[in-house]
């Protein structure tokens, strides 16, 4: 609604400054009128011209009139002018003849449009590395060598092989598959990409894990050839460990040659293993885990916008302003800034939005439109006419559950007037079909048998509203997450369960009735909990958007961990920037800083919270609409390697402090030893602390710079210098820092002999134990979250197994918390460096601003309602955990007591409903009658219903 899409467009020219840019855009011809196209696909069916399908990595074919993929937005066809027979040779026009809506327009002309904007966000993404030039891998010559992107398409139900995994050479199912990491990354010999592409380790592990789901039978083998496994994201290390314990083999080697297998099927791989032995091994298929490069047109884009690129061609930014370019008002996000994964990209999209919102705050709301729906049909008293839409989810559901049998079964269920099966029920075209079928069959209740309502219910509610139905007349039946995915080996029983689930959904939705959402006033003020870099940046961004902020910090000074750090990884000094930020926060009239503060209570919900805060000797009451939680983390105290026994054995932060204090002993030292993963990636803390590898490398470079004669050793398990942090790793090696890999089961041993520190470790290259003398031993102590127990209890939010605060969705909602109105930023969410903490702090401010920008907001309609059966016994009043129910007495009219529930406070938990012995209070959408209907359906045969 408030997003205008200009597809097939490119930037021609940029003029003006922040707040007022004029951008000339060339809109290329689509030759299809998007207002008329209904994406029926008839044109593509009739088009005689077949073209390689670039979306399917050229492994399949598309037509000259095409949509890129089923979930395209907008879902409208386009003619590819380079391949269209009419546009190239002047004859054909088949599409025009068959188009039922007359949408084809061969007279469509390219046009230049001028748009006026206040800020620009550049998100052109990345280009996958093309391994064609590397002859050692035989890509493009050996048929069974594919890139990871090609493999991704091969696994996809919408891909060239419809999700049936077959190899390109002979279309048989590959049993033994090898992944080769770092193809086009961490490589300055065969290409110029010295950086780590950040995402390939995880996508290779994911592909290997998904492959085991696709392959059946004996003899399957997935092997990943790697240099360092970099699973440094939240929950990634656990995923890696699961893969290791499961079917996936991890081989630390860099295969140097791939030869074709027998008859040009499969591959023969040559590599040297860790014992130095030459190995020749056959595989059915080799997947090259290709890296991420800056987009090809990045230099032109940079020139047009007058922004800088770094030496790898990615957009240049600073750690303290992670999405800002040198040109005010122009921001960058996503992989254009650096190779990054989905959570980080989604987070930084909000970061860029926060920066744009700062510039645009004066004109906020002046051009926005609000969505209107067609008037709702009153179907409350109609006999149910239920439509059932069964999703195949590609093969996710259809591989296990017999969706056709399920559809047949659903047709005979009571009140069901229409049943359909869709490849992807969530795709834009299916939404249109659902709306159409609602009208055609006069459907008044809908069952969607697909994935989970926790992610997809809002989408289908919207579809109903578009079709003049109340959004609460839809019921989602979870046959994917809670069926096909968890019963993969029992397709028959899974299908039976799916039938029961659909029947339960039908029985329940028949008793659904339209609900109205209520509006509440929004307190346009934010509470920021935690005054570290993330919290302070969040508060500043909120204040710049024009909102009042209360920033509480439990310490007596702002700044958090940043006080203990010297430089960011790009070398920006932290202390001066920190002091500047603290100064800005403390002098911002919109920010109320409360130090030595403790949160005592929380009441209310999104839009209207109230809390009591203990500050020094007084208690302060505050009202706020949203909260940003940025309570941080800390370096742990090591419990091993003789830490605490000698002052020369220190943690990273202690070493940084020694450097700041100009400890002369450091410069005079002959030898320094670093040990990584101290308390991370072990049984107790099975996660990677993310920052320590880079930290160690930076410190090692510092030592080698001040004293090139010093022996510096880094003992590590996997070096995780992701992105262009890899440059630091290379620099350290160039300076002569020695890196020794150790195994988790064979850790280094530290001893103090005659007041001298020694570290014994097995050296895998020379294959001998070595004993290193250390003037200093620096331990990469794990990052642990600050205690959040009270906060979790007060807000009813959650932490993961490691104690880090949870986000609402690890990929799609990485800054929102599971409790509405709460946002998370910084290290309390997961260990992260300065630039990422700041980015998440700004992102949280952007997400919070979505709520604060309105003075009223709509709440979910799942709320308790008092019925006329209430006799005022008040049993529910004490049972309500949200204090939403009050007892009232009607002294004037009836003289009776009754309860009243406050919908703004009610969270719809329904404890009142279960407590009430008389049906005096119910929860909309979850009435006893509806729950009973599901139980009955689960236990009775529908034919006797």
């Amino acid at each position, binding site marked *: 609604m408030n997003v205008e899409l200009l597809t097939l467009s490119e930037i021609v020219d940029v003029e003006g400054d922040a707040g007022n840019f004029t951008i000339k855009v060339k809109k290329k011809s689509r030759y299809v009128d998007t207002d008329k196209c209904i994406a029926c696909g008839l044109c593509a069916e009739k088009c005689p011209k077949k073209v390689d399908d670039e979306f399917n990595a050229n492994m399949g074919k598309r037509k000259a009139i095409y949509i890129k993929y089923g979930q395209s937005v907008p879902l409208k066809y386009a003619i590819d002018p380079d391949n269209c027979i009419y546009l190239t040779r002047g004859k054909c026009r088949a599409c025009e003849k068959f188009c039922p809506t007359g949408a084809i327009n061969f007279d469509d002309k390219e046009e230049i449009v001028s748009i006026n904007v206040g800020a620009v966000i550049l998100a052109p993404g990345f280009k996958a590395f093309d391994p064609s030039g590397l002859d050692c891998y035989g890509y493009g010559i050996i048929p069974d060598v594919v890139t990871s992107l090609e493999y991704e398409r091969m696994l996809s139900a919408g891909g060239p092989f419809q999700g049936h995994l077959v190899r390109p050479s002979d279309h048989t199912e590959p049993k033994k598959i090898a992944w080769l990491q770092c193809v086009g990354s961490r490589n300055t010999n065969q290409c110029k990409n010295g950086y780590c592409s950040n995402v390939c380790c995880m996508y290779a592990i994911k592909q290997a894990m998904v492959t085991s789901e696709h392959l059946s039978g004996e003899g399957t083998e997935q092997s990943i050839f790697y240099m360092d496994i970099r699973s440094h994201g939240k929950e990634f290390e656990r995923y890696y460990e699961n893969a290791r314990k499961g079917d996936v083999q991890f081989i630390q080697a860099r295969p140097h040659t791939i030869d074709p297998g027998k008859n040009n099927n499969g591959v023969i791989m040559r590599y040297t293993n860790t014992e130095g032995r030459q190995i020749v091994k056959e595989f059915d298929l080799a997947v090259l885990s290709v890296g991420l490069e800056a987009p090809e047109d990045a230099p032109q884009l940079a020139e047009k916008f007058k922004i800088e690129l770094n030496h790898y061609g990615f957009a240049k930014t600073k750690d303290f302003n992670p999405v800002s370019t040198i040109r005010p008002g122009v921001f960058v996000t996503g992989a254009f800034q650096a190779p990054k994964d989905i959570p980080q990209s989604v987070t930084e999209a909000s970061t860029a939005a926060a920066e744009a919102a700062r510039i645009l705050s004066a004109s906020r709301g002046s051009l926005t439109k609000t969505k209107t729906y067609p008037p709702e049909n009153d179907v409350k008293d109609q006999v149910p006419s239920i439509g059932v839409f069964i999703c195949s989810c590609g093969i996710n559901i259809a591989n296990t559950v017999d969706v056709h049998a399920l559809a047949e079964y659903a047709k005979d269920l009571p009140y069901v007037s229409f049943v359909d099966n869709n490849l992807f029920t969530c795709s834009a075209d299916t939404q249109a079909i659902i709306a159409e079928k609602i009208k055609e069959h006069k459907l008044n209740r809908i069952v969607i048998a697909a994935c989970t309502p926790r992610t997809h219910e809002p989408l289908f509610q919207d579809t109903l509203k578009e079709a003049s139905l109340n959004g609460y007349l839809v019921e989602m039946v979870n046959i994917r997450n809670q069926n096909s995915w968890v019963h993969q080996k029992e397709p028959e029983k899974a299908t*039976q369960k799916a039938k029961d689930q659909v029947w339960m959904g039908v029985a329940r939705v028949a008793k659904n009735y339209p609900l109205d959402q209520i509006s509440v006033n929004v307190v346009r003020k934010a509470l920021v909990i935690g005054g570290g870099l993330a919290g302070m940046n969040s508060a500043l961004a909120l204040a710049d958007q024009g909102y009042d902020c209360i920033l509480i910090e439990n310490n007596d000074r702002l700044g958090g961990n940043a006080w203990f750090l010297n430089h960011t990884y790009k070398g920006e000094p932290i202390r001066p920037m920190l002091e500047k930020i603290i100064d800005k926060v403390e002098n911002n009239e919109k920010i109320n800083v409360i130090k030595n503060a403790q949160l005592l209570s929380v009441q209310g919900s999104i839009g209207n919270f109230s809390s009591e805060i203990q500050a020094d000797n007084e208690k302060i009451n505050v009202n706020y609409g949203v909260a940003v939680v940025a309570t941080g983390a800390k370096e742990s105290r090591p419990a091993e390697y003789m830490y605490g026994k000698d002052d020369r054995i220190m943690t990273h932060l202690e070493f940084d402090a020694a450097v700041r204090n100009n400890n002369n002993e450091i410069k005079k030292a002959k030898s320094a030893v670093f040990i990584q993963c101290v308390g991370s990636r072990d049984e107790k803390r099975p996660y990677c602390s993310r920052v320590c590898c880079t930290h160690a490398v930076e410190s090692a470079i510092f030592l080698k710079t001040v004293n090139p004669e010093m022996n510096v050793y880094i003992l590590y398990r996997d070096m995780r210098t992701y992105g262009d942090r890899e440059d630091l790793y290379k620099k350290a090696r160039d300076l002569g820092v020695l890196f020794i890999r150790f195994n988790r089961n064979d850790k280094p041993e530290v001893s103090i002999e005659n007041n001298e520190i020694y570290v014994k470790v097995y050296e895998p290259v020379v294959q001998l134990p070595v004993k290193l003398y250390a003037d200093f031993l620096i331990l990469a102590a794990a990052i642990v979250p600050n205690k959040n127990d009270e906060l979790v209890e007060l807000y009813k939010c959650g932490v993961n197994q490691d104690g880090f605060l949870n986000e609402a969705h690890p990929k799609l909602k990485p800054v929102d918390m599971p409790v509405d109105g709460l946002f998370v930023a910084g290290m309390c969410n997961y260990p992260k460096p300065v630039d990422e903490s700041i980015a998440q702090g700004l992102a949280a401010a952007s997400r919070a601003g979505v709520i604060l920008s309105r003075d009223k907001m709509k709440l979910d309609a799942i709320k308790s309602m008092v019925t006329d059966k209430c006799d005022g016994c008040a049993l529910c009043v004490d049972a309500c955990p949200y204090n939403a129910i009050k007892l009232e007495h009607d002294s004037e009219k009836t003289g009776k007591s009754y309860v009243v529930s406050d919908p703004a406070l009610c969270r719809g938990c329904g404890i009142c409903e279960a407590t009430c012995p008389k049906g005096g209070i119910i929860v909309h959408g979850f009435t006893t009658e509806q729950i009973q209907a599901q139980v009955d359906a689960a236990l009775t045969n529908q034919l006797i219903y």
Partner: protein
Amino acid sequence: MSEKFEPTIIGFLCNWCAYAGADLAGVSRLQYPPNMRPIRVMCSGMVPADIVVNALEQGADGVMVMG
């Protein structure tokens, strides 16, 4: 008895924890027997005791209230 006993279990899953957990079990591809029929509720506290008893009376072999 020639056929193996297959219990029918009614599961009440709290939307905020158990249901989310069951979703996550799916994402993680954890495999478990397909005998439970899940019912999503907004809180395990919303399940009335008489519905639990009624389910057992109607022939359910077990009822799980998860929250």
